[in-house]
């Protein structure tokens, strides 16, 4: 019996030999580039941003992006109470409802958004993967306990959990990250458990255990790489999802200090201006999309590397 004939079930297990050619390396570069862009934006914000993100100028509210403004700044403002910019300032992407520079807020917004997205995913991903591995590979009543806890977590509507926690602990970025992390570990646990179960049942692994291969080695070399494929898809998508969940929480009134820019918060706060100042929501949304794309491209590459396949 060769390894190839034995291989069955939905997930391939064997073959260290052939690495699938990474092929379209461009996707990795683009992905890393976008992630780097967001990271640099977050880290070097004070240097990059042309204005302070909380500096309001009530005389320059809701200005359109620079290329849509008439050169002399002449013409009546579309919304009463808005004005023309003082001479010499650019406001490249326009201003928001308080007259703050949109570009600066987007640059600074990377900080909060990345913090929320990455930290919550890191915590929930690591915790969930570990628990899911244990539950899937070892099973038994320990596995049942983990799964019931996961059920518990999943049965609890996220929004209600968020409202209760934030009402009790007060608003703040750490609360939001906590809520996101605590509500999401169960998804990773269940996903990893299903992969671990499938792998455990394959003849190859059963044979390996029969001949006495250490569990830890099996988990590390065979179960984990396969699980990581699906986990990396979920994780990269979750980064985006969590940035957007922060927007939903702001929409429901549970968000953080609104003067601190965050892409999700900017989207929520500008929803009444969609018809009069579309740029206030479109550009933060684009920022999210580019960052999400970056994470996903990297995640795709990771998945390809970590999930060995036949050529």
């Amino acid at each position: 019996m060769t390894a190839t004939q034995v291989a069955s079930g939905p997930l391939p297990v064997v073959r260290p030999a052939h690495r699938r050619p990474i092929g379209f390396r461009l996707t990795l570069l683009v992905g890393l580039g976008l992630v780097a862009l967001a990271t640099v934006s977050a880290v070097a914000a004070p240097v990059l941003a042309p204005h302070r993100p909380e500096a309001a100028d009530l005389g320059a509210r809701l200005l359109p992006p620079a290329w849509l403004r008439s050169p002399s700044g002449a013409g009546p403002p579309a919304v009463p109470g808005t004005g023309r910019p003082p001479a010499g300032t650019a406001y490249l992407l326009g201003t928001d409802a308080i007259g703050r520079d949109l570009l600066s807020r987007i640059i600074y917004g990377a900080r909060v958004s990345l913090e929320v997205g990455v930290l919550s995913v890191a915590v929930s991903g690591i915790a969930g993967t570990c628990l899911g591995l244990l539950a899937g590979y070892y099973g038994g009543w320990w596995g049942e306990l983990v799964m019931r806890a996961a059920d518990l977590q999943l049965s609890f509507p996220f929004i209600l959990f968020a409202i209760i926690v934030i009402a009790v602990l007060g608003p703040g970025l750490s609360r939001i990250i906590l809520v996101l992390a605590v509500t999401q570990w169960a998804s990773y646990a269940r996903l990893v458990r299903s992969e671990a179960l499938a792998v455990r049942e394959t003849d190859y692994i059963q044979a390996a255990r029969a001949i006495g291969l250490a569990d830890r080695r099996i988990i590390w070399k065979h179960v984990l790489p396969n699980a990581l494929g699906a986990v990396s898809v979920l994780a990269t998508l979750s980064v985006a999802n969590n940035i957007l969940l922060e927007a939903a929480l702001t929409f429901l009134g549970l968000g953080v200090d609104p003067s601190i820019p965050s892409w999700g918060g900017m989207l929520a706060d500008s929803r009444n201006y969609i018809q009069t100042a579309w740029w206030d929501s479109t550009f933060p949304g684009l920022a999210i999309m580019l960052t999400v794309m970056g994470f996903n491209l990297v995640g795709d590459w990771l998945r390809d590397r970590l999930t060995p396949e036949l050529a």
Partner: protein
Amino acid sequence: MIRFIAARAGGALAVLAAVTLFVAFGIRMTGDPAVVLFEGSAPSAEDIRRIQRALGTDRPFLAQYAGFVAGAVRGNLGTSFRSGQPVAGEIFERAGATLALALGGMLVALAAAFPLGAYAATHRNALADFLIRVGSLLGLSFPNFWLAIMLILIVAVRLRWLPPSGYSGPASLVLPCVTLGVILASTLVRLVRASLLDTLGQPYMRTARAKGLREGRVVVRHGLRNALLPVVTFVGLQFGALLGGVVVLENVFAWPGLGQLALQAVTYRDYPVVQGVVVVLALGVVLVNLLVDLSYGVLNPRVRVGS
């Protein structure tokens, strides 16, 4: 099998107990429903005590919780503080709207994700694949409330094709279900594509092709069926998460469903309604998870859960 289901039932009860206990305790930690009823007109201490007695919130926590459980096992989920109506009735009235939204959204998502994901997987690295992947990212980049408001503005206000909000017949289902479906589909497409790519590279797929089966049949019969496992897991997972998205969408579309009920109940500290909704939702999620686990056995006989 019987032992498996019995064990799961026991586990489910434990989950329900834990969830309701946590909610009952958590919601009482801040805000007093008696004070909330006064809506900003300052109540006197005597007023507050009087209302607390009428609502039963002056009893110790365990007494309140025990009362709730005793009623719940008999099917009586208590009476709403705000409306004075039985909680079970309140939930039942709204369940249909939320189910319609959730199922409709899921259907839209599946109907879009399977064909698109399959096409992307089979035409890997082609322009279509790239477009589908970028499109799915676009669907993920804007929050659900933003997408909802945009659709309302374009379809209901500018084009006047559909009603902007409210649940008033099949036409009113379209916008909310499409909003929900687009968001779900964005994740599902990638999942379907990833699973299919995994499956399509398998040796037995090669065998199938070598046997002369058409590509389409190969993809569908073997590829998609095996891709179903992670997709089903995802659907099961999303059921719980769905309710989070549904709360926001019900808010934007003025949808008279459980999401709005739950949100308002928590906001106004209507304890019986919060507890009742959480019980019903938890029950639903546990059931769906059980179904998902059982389906593993069907989709992949090698995986005998509980053995």
